């Protein structure tokens, strides 16, 4: 179950942050997302020699904490997508699929002429699309 998704701009400014739990630990989730940004920077700036994924967009599992797993995705325009989930076993293909759909929704939201680049994404239809993508995560449905 996904508990939080975040979009962070290339200057590490938050563009979209949405939690999907009813509990009050939204702040803790924000903190987890913040720490994951450091992991992304480290992965990008110090590529491991034997990793063939130097230029790939999907960064994989970043940060397993006690309850959560954080997955990361970096676009060509240095925008980072982060996904926090409580699932214990997340298939690689599911995570990639999620980020693919999320990227499509993000591109559509940014193409809005009234959206100011660098400001938070304020589109309700983007929020609705993200909720749909999050709900269909892990159930094996492909869109």
């Amino acid at each position, binding site marked *: 179950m996904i508990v939080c998704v975040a979009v962070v701009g*290339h200057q590490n400014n938050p563009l979209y942050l949405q939690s999907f739990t009813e509990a009050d630990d939204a702040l803790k989730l924000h903190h987890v997302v913040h720490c994951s940004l450091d992991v992304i920077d480290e992965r990008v700036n110090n590529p491991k020699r034997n990793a063939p994924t*130097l*230029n*790939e*967009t999907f960064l994989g599992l970043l940060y397993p904490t006690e309850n959560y797993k954080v997955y990361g995705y*970096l*676009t*060509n*325009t*240095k*925008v980072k997508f982060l996904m926090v989930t409580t699932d214990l076993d997340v298939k690689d293909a599911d995570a990639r699929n999620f980020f693919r759909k999320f*990227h*499509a929704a*993000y*591109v559509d939201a*940014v*193409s809005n*002429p009234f959206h100011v*680049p660098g400001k938070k994404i304020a589109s309700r239809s983007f929020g609705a699309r993200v909720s749909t993508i999050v709900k269909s995560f892990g159930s094996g449905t492909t869109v």
Partner: protein
Amino acid sequence: MGREVAESCLDGVVMEMVSAYCSRFYAAKPELAAGRIEAIGFQVGHQLSERYTMDRPRFSDHLEAIKFICKDFWSELFKKQIDNLKTNHRGTFVLQDNHFPWLTRVSLDPSMESTDATESDSASLGDTAAQTTTMLLYFPCGIIRGALTNLGITCAVSADMSNLPACSFVVRIKT
């Protein structure tokens, strides 16, 4: 999935936008009109580059990004690629397009102008047309600058139209 529009509509919108900014909004101040047109192109390029880099792996250096502009980006926009790319390996790139689609209908020959022109001097007629064409070229310059800025490359783009319909865009990367 996406809705489609005829290409001639797009050509019409671009021409009318340039003409509106030059003759109506900033009629007495062509530098401001040029700046506005370039800024519009900047935002368009910014958003388009987001869309067209979606399924690609990340670029490793400036040359890769410029090659992306020349091949994929240009073919998405104009259904053709940039014909010639030159570089001095020190941050300057010249992208030459031998048949730029937005300039194919532009003629700078003053003797072809019809009677609805107000100037009687044929030399100034040629100047007006040249000035309008220069204004039109600010838009693709802005598109290129917006796309490169979104990929993390700060640059300045200028256009050179010494022989139509070929034109070249000079990209100077700021280091």
